[in-house]
């Protein structure tokens, strides 16, 4: 396979990438670069993580940077607490059920005490349960104060029929969200990883009756989320997740041995190929050469498609300049968005779904509302 020729990210992402690679790079950044770092880190949801890693460098950083880092760490600590408390409440609510409950994504990383968990700012909890138990799980949650998020009837039907999860449930007091999955990809996807295999391989946790995916499955889920899930607004953060998981798991040789085989088994070889390729190419993740080749053999698409992805992915993933948003980046994201839905849905359904989404009411979704923020002190009547 030819050397990866992956498009260079915008220069303004330089300080961010340097600091991600090595936290000590902070000490060498000029004021201009630190300014850009703060902006890019915030936009890509990486500020808290960098702030946590920089704790020991604190005293050598300018006061302004310390203030932003302090605030970012506070946010992360709050999200971590919310997440753990949510899991605690879920344990109480689902205590009576015999079904295995597997934590996914952020909740899993936190409860498994993975370094990757630091600085994450998502407090929704995702769980995976066997499909036959989903009714009982839903019922238990509803009984303990969770409510269905209001969806239009179309969306409700769509969720229940095609999706891999229930419509989201929000707790009436805490306002937190639980997503109950019965598989990690929708039924309409062209990929069909078998959830029963994933659940069977799930590992126990020290302080919880819940479980987490086995390392290879966790990595594959992360890769799939990144390259098959439609919403690319947090994509760099998600690639960093992939990077972190690989770095954390690489110590065990068993991980590399099973990774590609497991990907084949779960039909996730394509996302794995992309994840390894772009983590290594854009973030310098150390991936053994033989694993890289095996992943390519198992999951690489045609050379022209790889070349196209090599051009689009960096554009879409990497933040562009905050003052001069690139049109190319937006176009790349649109292309990838449509493509990822293509992977998830047969085209007739896709056309109908996208048309519906375009015509339907857009819910205000842009700004993260912090729990406890009593109001937007903003324009009255707007």
């Amino acid at each position, binding site marked *: 396979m030819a050397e990866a020729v992956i498009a260079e990210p915008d220069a303004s992402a330089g300080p961010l990438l340097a600091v991600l690679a090595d936290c000590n790079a902070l000490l060498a950044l000029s004021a201009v670069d630190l300014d850009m770092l703060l902006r890019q880190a915030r936009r890509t949801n990486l500020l808290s993580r960098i702030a946590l890693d920089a704790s020991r460098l604190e005293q050598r950083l300018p006061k302004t940077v310390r203030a932003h880092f302090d605030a970012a760490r506070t946010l992360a600590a*709050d999200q971590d*607490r*919310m997440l*753990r*408390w949510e899991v*605690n*409440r879920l344990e109480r609510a689902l205590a009576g059920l015999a079904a295995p409950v597997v934590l996914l994504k952020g909740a899993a990383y936190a409860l498994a005490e993975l370094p990757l968990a630091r600085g994450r700012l998502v407090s929704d909890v995702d769980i995976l349960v066997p499909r036959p138990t989903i009714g009982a799980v839903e019922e238990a949650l509803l009984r303990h104060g969770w409510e269905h998020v209001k969806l239009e009837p179309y969306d409700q039907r769509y969720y229940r029929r095609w999706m891999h999860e229930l419509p989201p449930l929000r707790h009436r007091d805490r306002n937190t969200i639980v997503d109950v999955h019965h598989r990690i990809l929708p039924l309409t996807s062209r990929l069909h990883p078998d959830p029963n295999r994933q659940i069977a391989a799930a590992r126990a946790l020290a302080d919880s009756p819940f479980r987490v995916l086995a390392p290879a499955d966790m990595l594959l889920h992360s890769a799939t989320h990144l390259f098959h899930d439609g919403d690319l607004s947090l994509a760099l953060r998600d690639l960093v997740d992939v990077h972190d998981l690989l770095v954390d798991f690489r110590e065990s040789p068993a991980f590399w041995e099973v990774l590609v085989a497991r990907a084949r088994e779960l039909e996730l070889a394509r996302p794995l190929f992309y994840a390894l390729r772009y983590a290594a190419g854009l973030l310098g993740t150390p991936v053994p050469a033989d694993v890289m080749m095996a992943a390519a053999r198992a999951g690489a698409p045609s050379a022209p498609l790889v070349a196209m992805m090599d051009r689009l992915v960096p554009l879409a993933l990497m933040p562009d300049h905050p003052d001069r948003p690139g049109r190319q980046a937006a176009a790349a994201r649109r292309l990838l968005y449509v493509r990822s839905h293509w992977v998830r849905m047969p085209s007739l359904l896709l056309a109908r779904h996208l048309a519906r989404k375009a015509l339907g009411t857009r819910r205000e979704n842009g700004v993260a509302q912090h729990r406890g923020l009593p109001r937007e002190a903003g324009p009255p009547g707007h």
Partner: protein
Amino acid sequence: MSSAAPRWHVPAGTCLLRKSWGDEVVVFNTASGQTHVLDALSAAILEAIEASPASVDMLAHRFGRQLGLEPAACARRLEIVCEHFDELGLIAPEPS
């Protein structure tokens, strides 16, 4: 009083911070991140449970006179208080 009666406790990992002003106590639960205001008696009940796990009967024995209720009503009242604390995430049934 059955020694097998279910007991309430403040779970390990839950740290409760308190601040009193007059008759009211503001309580912060570090585990849930939530803040509550309790009257003096409720606060005392919570403090008792925190000091050592207690069943409703044990609490009735201790706080019966302050509540000024007959034993049955007293127990019922304490049950309600404990269930409320449980819902708020301040206490939990002791694992058997």
